[in-house]
C-alpha cells in the first residue's frame, strides 16, 4: 500500500515547499498541532535526505511521499490522531471508555463503539462536582505559582531588554540581544508546557519550525521581525501583574473561606474572639457561627469555580500570545 499514486496536487520539490504545503493543508487545525506536525515532518525529511547523499531533494521527497505520506495525507493523519487523543484524554464518565490500543485486534470486526451521551447533571452536582476534577486544582496551583513565574519572566524580560538596549551603543549589545531573544523562545515553550499541564490548553510540544535554507544571520533577523516574539515579550511582562492578582485572589479567598469554616470549632473554645469584630466590638452572636461555616463552604466551592474560570481565560490568552501562527 505504499506505492499508491498520490492524488491531488503536484508534489513539492523542496523541503520548505513540502512544509508549506503541509501547513496549508492544516490551515484550519489547532496551531499547536500544526507546529508539532511541521517539526516531525522536518525531522523525517532532513534525516532521509542525510541518509541518501547524492540524491536531489526532489527525488527524496518523491520517495517520502510513498513512505511518510504526501502533505495532504500527513495532514489527514494528524487531524484524525488529534480527535482520537482528545477523546482518550476527556475526563472519563461513569463507565470509563476502554483504552483502545490495549486491545490490538478487537476492533477489526466492528466500528468504533458509539459514545454514550453524557448524563445531564443537576445544578447542585455541577456546583460541588468541581472539587472532583483535577483541572480545578491545576488551575488553583497555577494561580499560586504564577506569582513566582510571573516575577521571574518579568524580571528576565525587563533586564534582557534594558541590557540589550543599553549595550547597543557598544557592539556587545547585539550578541546580548540575540541571546536574549533566543532565551525568550525557550521560556515560551516552557511556559507552554506549564499551561498545558495545569490549565489543559493544548500548547506546542516542539519548538517553532525555522526555515533551514536561510542563513544564520537571516534567521536571527527573522526572530526580530516575527510578531510572535514580541507578543511573547508582552505576555511575559503581563505575567507580573497577572501573577500578583491571581496569587492574591487565590490566597485571600482560600484563607477567608477556610477561616469561616472553622469558626464554630473556634467558638467552642473561646467565644470572645470569634466572629466579626469592628472597632473591637463583637458584631455577631455565637449562634451565627454555624451559618458562617456554611458560607465558608459555599465560598470555598465558589473559589474553585473562579479558579477554573481564570485558568480557562488565562489558557486562551496564553494561546493567543504564545502560539499565534
Amino acid at each position, binding site marked *: 500500500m505504499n506505492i499508491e499514486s498520490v492524488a491531488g496536487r503536484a508534489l513539492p520539490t523542496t523541503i520548505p515547499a513540502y512544509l508549506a504545503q503541509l501547513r496549508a493543508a492544516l490551515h484550519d487545525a489547532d496551531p499547536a498541532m500544526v507546529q508539532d506536525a511541521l*517539526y516531525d515532518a522536518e*525531522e523525517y525529511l*532532513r*534525516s532521509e535526505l542525510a541518509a541518501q547523499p547524492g540524491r536531489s531533494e526532489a527525488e527524496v521527497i518523491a520517495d517520502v511521499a510513498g513512505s511518510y505520506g504526501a502533505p495532504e*495525507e500527513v495532514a489527514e493523519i*494528524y487531524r484524525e490522531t488529534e480527535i482520537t487523543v482528545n477523546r482518550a484524554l476527556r475526563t472519563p464518565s461513569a463507565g470509563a471508555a476502554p483504552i483502545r*490500543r490495549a*486491545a490490538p485486534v478487537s476492533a477489526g470486526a466492528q466500528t468504533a463503539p458509539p459514545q454514550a451521551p453524557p448524563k445531564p447533571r443537576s445544578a447542585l452536582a455541577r456546583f460541588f462536582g468541581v472539587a472532583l476534577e483535577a483541572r480545578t486544582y491545576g488551575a488553583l496551583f497555577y494561580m499560586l505559582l504564577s506569582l513566582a513565574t510571573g516575577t521571574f519572566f518579568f524580571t528576565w524580560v525587563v533586564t534582557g531588554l534594558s541590557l540589550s538596549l543599553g549595550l547597543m551603543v557598544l557592539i556587545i549589545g547585539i550578541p546580548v540581544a540575540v541571546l536574549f531573544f533566543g532565551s525568550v523562545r525557550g521560556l515560551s515553550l516552557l511556559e507552554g508546557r506549564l499551561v498545558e499541564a495545569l490549565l489543559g490548553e493544548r500548547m506546542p510540544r*516542539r519548538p517553532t519550525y525555522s526555515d533551514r535554507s536561510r542563513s544564520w544571520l537571516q534567521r536571527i533577523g527573522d526572530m526580530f521581525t516575527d510578531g510572535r516574539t514580541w507578543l511573547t515579550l508582552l505576555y511575559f511582562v503581563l505575567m507580573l501583574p497577572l501573577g500578583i492578582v491571581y496569587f492574591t485572589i487565590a490566597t485571600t479567598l482560600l484563607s477567608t473561606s477556610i477561616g469561616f469554616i472553622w469558626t464554630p470549632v473556634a467558638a467552642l473554645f473561646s467565644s470572645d474572639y470569634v466572629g466579626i469584630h469592628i472597632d473591637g466590638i463583637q458584631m455577631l452572636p455565637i449562634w451565627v457561627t454555624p451559618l458562617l461555616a456554611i458560607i465558608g463552604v459555599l465560598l470555598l466551592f465558589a473559589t474553585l469555580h473562579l479558579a477554573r474560570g481564570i485558568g480557562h481565560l488565562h489558557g486562551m490568552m496564553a494561546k493567543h500570545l504564545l502560539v499565534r501562527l
Partner: protein
Amino acid sequence: MSDHEVHLKKFQKELSSGTVSLALLAVLAKAGEPLYGYLIAKELERVGEGVLSGKQSALYPVLRNLEGAGLLESHVEPSVAGPPRRYYRINDTGREVLSHWTAAWRATRDSVDSVLEGVTA
C-alpha cells in the same frame, strides 16, 4: 477505488490503531538504546508488512501519546542534519505494559487463527 479496497483500507486502519503502539514499544525494547522518530520508522519499514507498512507520519503522534501515557521517556539532542531530534527510550512501566500487551496479542492471534482455520475464501 473499488468496494473491496475501501473495505480493506478500513479494516487495516482499525487493525493498525493498536498494533502500531505494540510494534513501537517492541522496537524500542529491542533496540537497547534511545532512537529518534526517523530511525524507528525505518526499522518498522524494514520488517513491516501489512498494517505496519502504513504511512510513517502516523508513527510520530503515537510516539508522543505513548510518552504522554508514561510508557516512554524522551530527550532532545541537536543534530547536524536538521532540527534537534527527540530520542525515545522505553521505561520500566513501558516494559511491563509491553509484556501484558504481548500476551494479549498472542492470545488474540491464536484464537483468530484457529477461527480462520479451514475457512475457504
